């Protein structure tokens, strides 16, 4: 069991507090969804854990070891970060793109081991048949699977994914979600940000809700996504349909009046 422990995390942009006294502990083996309105600090939280942003204060520990003190390559081998709408600057083929995940392993693993990891990642995401296709020719769904394969090829302990389902149709959203869930069931950790409340309720084992840089709810979907919390965080009237079933549905009636 791996743990990502965040204590008293604060991130400032100028005078503005983007993250304010965040205390949360993520555990492996489950999918944690970080929710909140736009500007709540979700992406900043993920980028801080990935080591891309330096917090003003606070600590981020991975199994007792400070991620801020880790060498950047060592951290990249353990924590993979999938940015929102990632850039792909050159028309490289799928296999080459997936292979980029092995860059932090230079000098640590052999070329054969790297090749095997890339092959496993492509097989698990069912993209082996496109290995020679140029990434610019992929559809949105194919691209999403390829980017997940790129993350899996690093065989990290943790995946931090910022809006991994943005721009995908419902079928491809579930496809990508299934891949991330399977990864978490394998004993690794997944923390993702998401705006779709129903999808979050279905795929996440745990929900953390941020508002104005603070954690306002933390628990199972049923505990964290109550109509009262949704009203206070998003200003919407919503209710759970089929709350005890396998496929919960959160119906949003509209903005809360008053």
């Amino acid at each position: 069991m791996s743990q990502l422990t965040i204590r008293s995390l604060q991130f400032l942009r100028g005078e503005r507090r983007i993250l304010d006294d965040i205390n949360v502990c993520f555990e492996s083996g489950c999918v944690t969804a970080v929710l909140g309105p736009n500007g709540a600090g979700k992406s900043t939280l993920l980028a801080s854990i990935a080591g891309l942003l330096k917090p003003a204060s606070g600590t981020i520990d991975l199994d007792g070891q400070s991620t801020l003190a880790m060498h950047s390559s060592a951290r990249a081998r353990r924590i993979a970060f999938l940015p929102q709408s990632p850039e792909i600057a050159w028309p490289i083929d799928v296999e080459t793109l997936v292979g980029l995940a092995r860059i932090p392993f230079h000098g640590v693993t052999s070329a054969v081991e790297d090749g095997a990891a890339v092959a496993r990642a492509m097989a698990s995401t069912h993209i082996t048949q496109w290995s020679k296709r140029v990434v610019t020719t992929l559809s949105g769904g194919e691209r999403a699977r390829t980017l997940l394969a790129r993350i899996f090829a690093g065989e990290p302990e943790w995946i931090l994914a910022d809006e991994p389902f943005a721009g995908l149709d419902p079928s491809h959203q579930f496809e990508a979600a299934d891949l991330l869930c399977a990864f978490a069931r394998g004993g690794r950790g997944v923390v993702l940000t998401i705006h779709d409340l129903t999808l979050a309720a279905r795929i996440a084992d745990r929900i953390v809700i941020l508002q104005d840089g603070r954690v306002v709810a933390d628990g199972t979907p049923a505990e964290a996504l109550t109509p009262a919390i949704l009203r206070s965080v998003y200003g919407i009237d919503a209710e759970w349909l089929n709350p005890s079933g396998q496929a919960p549905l959160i119906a949003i009636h509209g903005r809360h009046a008053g």
Partner: protein
Amino acid sequence: MTAPITVKGRWLVPALLVLVAALACVSIVVGKVNLGWDVWSHQDDVSRAILVELRLPRTLLGIIIGAALGLSGAALQGYLRNPLAEPGTLGVSSMAALGAVLSIFFNVAGMHPFVLPACGVLGGLLGMMFLFLLSGMAASALTLILSGVILGSLAIAGISLALSLSPSPWAAGEIIRWLLGALTDRSLDDVTIATPLILVGSIATLSCRRALDALTLGEVGARSLGVDLNRVQWQLALGIGLIVGTSVAVTGIVGFVGLVVPHLLRPIVGSRPSVLLIPSAIGGAAFVLCGDIIVRLLPGGTELQLGVVMSLIGAPFFFALLQSMRRKLT
């Protein structure tokens, strides 16, 4: 992991090496005086002098400078994720030329053979450093290119000022020569000066190859793969500053090599930046040798400057390339 190279790409490096070797042979033999293919067995002093004093340095410098420019173009394009980047478009070549020009202007170039190249190298290094400082540490490609345009304009203004205030016609002539770029009248001393500096710069540049690959995923993607972008930026500033500064100091500004060669090779070896570096270096050597042979073969009493010919070939070629890219997109 090791970079996968396409089937076409596998034969490219050996083929380019053969091409460079063949062009080097032609470059040694061909000129105003044709030495003939049995040049190495010539015993007479004139042939030997032409070979050792003129053709050999010219050919070796063509290879070294071409490789340096090809490599720096491919590396800058990889770093900025922009196929329009090269030392010329980023103002680094102009800064190196300004350094060399100032050494002529202040009449210190004649003090020692190392002074002018050293000033050129200093100009190139300062150019790369100003470029990164002007645009900030975490600069976007667009900011960096705009900063390069500003830097290039400033350097050209400085060179123009030196030209208009030049103390003697000799100095003005020398300054113009740096701007045009040439491989003529170079000696083995120039080879001795240029080789180690370009080698060090090339090693610094080549050691960034994995970071350049990671930058395919953008700056955020590269940093999430553990790449220290600050270190890469300074390493490239040193590497490219050294190789461009040295090449400009020895031959003046030879444009378009760093722009055209990676473009030509990308469809063959693929777009992965690390895979493009070595072929671009060898391709750059072939390109410059070819240009320098054309310069010598053109009829007329006065030999054209290499920089002029490269631009005359390069500009329409590049324009045709842009047109074909546009056709593919529409």
